[in-house]
């Protein structure tokens, strides 16, 4: 429906908003989809946030065996935590003192949505998609992330069926922290690889 602005006047729908309403109503009227299914799908999308990915990272930091399973088969390991990731073939790539990983989809915006939610605007932007494959260190510096030249950078371009998650290094000074506390250090951006986790 139209939103009221502060003066109590309705804003007209844009052409594309009109298209969205029209498409949805047509599909429901024709019985192609049900109202219930539409609402469920919307709830599903709302439920997907980077907090889910942070739980996975925190568990991997705490349990070496879980980390090994995560690197072997990301989807199965995530499902073992009770997190559903339908239609997602997850490949988890690990940062080490020698290797830094960063994810992109140069062709569109492929992203592990079922785990992290909707990708940020910059991830979908021309500038990121064009340049991070060619000059990753410079692009990372634009995020305030300095990766020394002696560290190997691996850029992953999600061109097909796999979806990628970066497993960052556990920050120093976090011995004995609970998983929940560790998860609070894990940002969306460090799971894409453009940042590092928050400091302890």
């Amino acid at each position, binding site marked *: 429906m139209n939103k009221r602005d502060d003066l109590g006047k309705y804003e007209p729908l844009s052409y*594309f908003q*009109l*298209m969205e309403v029209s498409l949805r109503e047509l*599909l429901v009227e024709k019985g192609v989809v049900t109202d219930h299914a539409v609402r469920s799908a919307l709830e599903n999308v709302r439920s997907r946030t980077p907090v889910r990915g942070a739980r996975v990272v925190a568990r991997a930091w705490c349990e070496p065996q879980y980390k090994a399973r995560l690197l072997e088969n990301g989807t199965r390991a995530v499902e073992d935590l009770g997190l559903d990731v339908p239609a997602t073939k997850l490949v988890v790539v690990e940062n080490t003192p020698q290797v830094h990983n960063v994810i992109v989809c140069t062709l569109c915006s492929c992203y592990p949505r079922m785990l992290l939610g909707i990708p940020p605007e910059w991830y979908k*932007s021309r500038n990121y998609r064009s340049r991070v494959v060619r000059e990753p260190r410079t692009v990372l510096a634009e995020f305030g992330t300095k990766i020394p030249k002696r560290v190997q950078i691996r850029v992953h371009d999600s061109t097909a069926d796999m979806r990628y998650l970066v497993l960052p290094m556990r920050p120093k000074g976090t011995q004995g922290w609970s998983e929940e506390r560790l998860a609070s250090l894990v940002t969306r951006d460090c799971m894409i690889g453009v940042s590092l986790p928050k400091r302890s």
Partner: protein
Amino acid sequence: MAKRRNLPELLIARSHHDMGGRPAGKVKPLEHDVEDWERRVDAMMVLLTGVLGGKRLMTVDELRKNIEALGPEAYDRMSYYERWVTSITQTMIQRGVITTDELSRKMEQVKARLEEACRK
């Protein structure tokens, strides 16, 4: 002698969306509050691709193909979900799930309904 650049070939041999490695500006760490209608478009894709177990009515490949078909200017000027809703709707027409005529009448109907509501 300078080689004549064959612009039509350059436009077609490499599609505008295939931008890896092309010169571009600084990355602005933009965040965008996803609007309700945009989230509904995202949810519509989840629904239509059968990800949650329902019937698969289209593929993400068709979504991508129809976005790629928008052409460079539209691609650059449209927002992300404007591209998505256009592409999903095109796909439904291509598949015969809806027709152009049905869409046009529904758009007229919705517009009239909302204008009526505004007048009240």
